[in-house]
């Protein structure tokens, strides 16, 4: 098999080819390893997708369903003995003594570690410009961002530098970069995948998810990640098994379009591609109706209270005592804390720590954190009510296509608005998938489909039927 042929295979197809004997796992690993390594070596001249790339293919043949198809993993997953910095200076040189559950489950399923991917620092960002390793570039247009915070994972898969990748989604960090890079990104139900070993941003929202070339790959990866983990008290047993999707039609499927997330603030070109996808769905037999999520417009506000609040606490452990960097010139303990955190954290992380500290401080807790938690309740109720009438909510994934590097860095609020359509699902803890549904200005547009908790199998089926019909051409992104 030629290298080009190898790189054309989806992860599922590659696993099948290895199983059928037409491809060796080592050959596959090395093809991707070489591509990843040269991107790493190229630095800013490449896409800057990776923070670390494996040297050698696993020496043992892989006797597991994923057959040795290697996976690129977001930097914030702890990998034993392999640098894990969450894109932050403050964890410079950090080598964890243990491996995240999601990563070890994938390895046990037959997917060894190919590389660690670049990301926004501690998963805070929507453009991958907030990284200690520098920005990632979008393979569709080098002058544009890949989205974030799992930007390295999304760009690597889109560019064919990895067969598939693992990311995390707190307010849209898998779905939005998947949309901006023209690939598939799935945020599972909160609790479906263990968070153990995932360097935390906002604990009540963080969830690991696959970034893949197609919906089948997303299902295959998820199958090998889900399940209750005794090390994560918030993890849950997945009811049943993740099936590989087979649907070709959407007959009888009721799709709801929430006006609150498909109107103001969404780019014209994005809305056009979204509308075209809805037409496709109707042709496949879906019933499409309007649905109301009256509190969805407040989701972003609630999110930007809750997530920074949790982050301000989660990031308190970076104090220069046990790991990572410590400011060297501190003259006492307080000074050591203040300077280590000043030098170690980037601007966006500092902003969110300040925001979260404020939202939790005495006198402001109820006005901010308390209210935001109540808005969260309302948003969950909105979805519950909606799902009594419809099967899935559909929206554009992001309000715009990939924007230019530097375009929004000066305006945090404009950057935060990238999460407008994805944050409500995060707050409700429900699964949502982004699939490429067309182009605008020659750049990919994502369609988001969200369902009730633990509806992943039905969700993947619907996404697969639409994907087949849309037949998005992802080849321009390959490098």
């Amino acid at each position, binding site marked *: 098999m030629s290298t080009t042929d190898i790189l054309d295979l989806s992860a599922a197809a590659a696993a099948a080819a290895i199983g059928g004997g037409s491809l060796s796992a080592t050959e596959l690993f090395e093809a991707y390893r070489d591509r990843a390594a040269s991107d790493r070596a190229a630095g800013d001249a490449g896409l800057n997708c990776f923070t670390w790339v494996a040297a050698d293919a696993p020496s043992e043949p892989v006797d597991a369903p994923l057959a040795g198809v290697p996976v690129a993993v977001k930097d*914030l*997953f*702890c990998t034993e003995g392999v640098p*894990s910095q*969450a894109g932050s200076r403050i*964890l410079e040189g*950090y080598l*964890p*003594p*243990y491996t*995240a559950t999601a990563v070890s489950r994938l390895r046990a399923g037959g997917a060894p570690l190919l590389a660690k991917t670049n990301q926004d620092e501690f998963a805070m960002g929507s453009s991958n410009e907030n990284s200690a390793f520098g920005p990632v570039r979008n393979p569709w247009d080098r002058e544009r961002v890949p989205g974030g915070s799992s930007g390295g994972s999304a760009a690597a898969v889109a560019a064919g530098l990895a067969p598939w990748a693992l990311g995390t989604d707190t307010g849209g960090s898998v779905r939005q970069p998947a949309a901006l890079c023209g690939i598939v990104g799935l945020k599972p139900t909160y609790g479906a995948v263990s*968070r*153990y*070993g*995932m*360097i*935390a941003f*906002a*604990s*009540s929202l963080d969830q690991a998810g696959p970034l893949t070339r197609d919906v089948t790959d997303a299902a295959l990866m998820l199958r090998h990640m889900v399940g209750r983990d*005794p*090390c*994560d*008290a*918030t993890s849950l047993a997945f009811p049943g098994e993740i099936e590989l999707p087979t649907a070709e039609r959407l007959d009888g499927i009721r799709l709801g379009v929430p006006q609150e997330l498909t109107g103001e603030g969404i780019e014209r070109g994005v809305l056009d591609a979204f509308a075209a996808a809805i037409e496709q769905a109707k042709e496949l037999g879906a019933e499409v109706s309007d649905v109301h999520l009256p509190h969805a417009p407040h989701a972003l506000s609630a999110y930007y209270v809750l997530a920074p*609040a*949790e982050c*301000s*606490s989660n*990031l*308190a*452990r970076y*104090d220069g*005592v*046990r*790991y990572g960097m410590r400011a*060297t*010139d*501190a*003259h*006492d*303990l*307080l000074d050591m*804390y203040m300077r280590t955190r000043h030098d170690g954290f980037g601007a966006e992380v500092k902003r969110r720590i300040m925001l979260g*500290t404020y939202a*939790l*401080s*005495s006198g402001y*807790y109820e006005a901010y*954190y308390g209210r935001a938690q109540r808005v969260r309740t309302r948003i969950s109720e909105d979805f519950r009510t909606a799902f009594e009438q419809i099967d899935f909510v559909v929206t554009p994934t992001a309000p715009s296509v990939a924007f230019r590097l530097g375009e929004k860095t000066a305006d945090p609020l404009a950057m935060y608005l990238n999460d407008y359509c994805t944050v409500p699902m995060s707050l409700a803890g429900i699964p949502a998938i982004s699939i490429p549904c067309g182009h605008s200005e020659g750049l990919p547009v994502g369609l988001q489909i969200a369902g009730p908790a633990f509806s992943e199998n039905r969700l993947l089926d619907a996404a697969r039927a639409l994907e087949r019909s849309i037949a998005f051409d992802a080849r321009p992104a390959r490098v």
Partner: protein
Amino acid sequence: MSDHKPGGVADAGGDGELEAVIGLEIHVQLATRTKMFCGCELSFGEPPNTRTCPVCLGLPGSLPVANARAVHLGLMIGLALGSELAPRSIFHRKNYFYPDLPKGYQITQYDEPLCRGGELGDVRIHRVHLEEDAAKLIHAGASGRIHGSDTSFVDFNRGGTPLAEIVTEPDLRAPEQASEWLKLLRTTLRQLGVSDVNMEEGSLRCDANISLRPRGSETLGVKTELKNMNSFRFIERGIRAEIARQEEILAGGGQVVQETLHFDPASGSITSLRSKEEAHDYRYFPEPDLVPVAIDDGMLAAARADMSELPADRAERLQRELGLSVDSAQVLAFRTELGDYFEAAVAARAEPAPPAQGLANWIAGDLVGRLPEGQDPSDSRVEPRALAALVGLVAERRVSVGAARQVLDRLIEGGGSEPLAIIEAEGLGAMDGGSELAEIVAAAVAANTDAAERVREGNAKAIGPIVGQVMRETKGRADGTEVARLIHEQLGA
């Protein structure tokens, strides 16, 4: 420190118009095998930093999972104190920076604790909640300075040890009342088996909230918090010193400032613990990494099944079933080791069988008095069965009290384990009222003519010297009552 008599202002009577209001916060280390939120075994003096894992080191990505046994022990405490057990309680994060706090927050319970209310003795319980302990920060002094600053060393072995925090209502009024009550709590917790409750080793730690107010007032004055007093004596002294300090401030027309204080037992002085730059805002919020603790019937039943008898219940039973006096029953119930020894002696079915009250007196009096301070009698050489038999022999007048004490001395020394054998070997058996004793009595009367004369005249107290001589002659084997009877008989008095 001014030298206040015990009770301080509380006892001041007429002119003491202030009274102290004291509440305690007690941290109890729970007797689990592993830490509160991770599987590390608890540390008992292992080398530093050998009992750690990603969770208790606060490594990035690690997550806490609550220890089921800690919850179980917390429920037992709640049951013992008559608390209301929350069907659903949650953990919060208490955020602050300190090198012994690896995550930058402590996981504790805040507004939805495991147990609320309850009482022990005459003190009401406010709440009982679960939390994790901090690690150990050891000041290493100026030896290894870091950029001009003294160095401290952090050992995370203790970090994450499970604690129950018991908070009382401010129902205590005097320092010694506080330490007495704390002893009662310790006995209760020990009996429950939920903790080692060893103050020296830090498995029982106590803070006190102290304020003063005009006697009879219902409002509370400004309180201060006195931290981590690590012995009953220090608690008493610390509280007394703080009451004196507050009295002095108020007497001078000043205001007590709400603050956290440290009592130094060596100097007797009280110092403020927190500097201004550490003004605290703990930013409590629900711990998103943990789910609520839900108490189901199974957990409650398991906690009930594990409860041994509590001191108050034991005292009541000893009175009811064995007819002990109130005082004896309480001594045996609240000094668990004495109660256990007593019940072992009763259960030994010794021959002859001792009366229960006599046995209790011998244990709490003669036996404890002969053992080194604090020694558990079950660690002595005196078998409960042997003591029971000895008390039985005394009751049957087969050995005098004095001789029995000599037998007890032998038992303690390890000079035998059978009272009867010791009595026979040493000739300590009670002399019957026969001619031998009568002859010794007659000789003693003859040798103490002055005393004999006064006894004849009706002065009963004068019998002493005569009895003394008989006892010397008989080496204490004679029964005192019988000796007295013979003296009176021979003197016709």
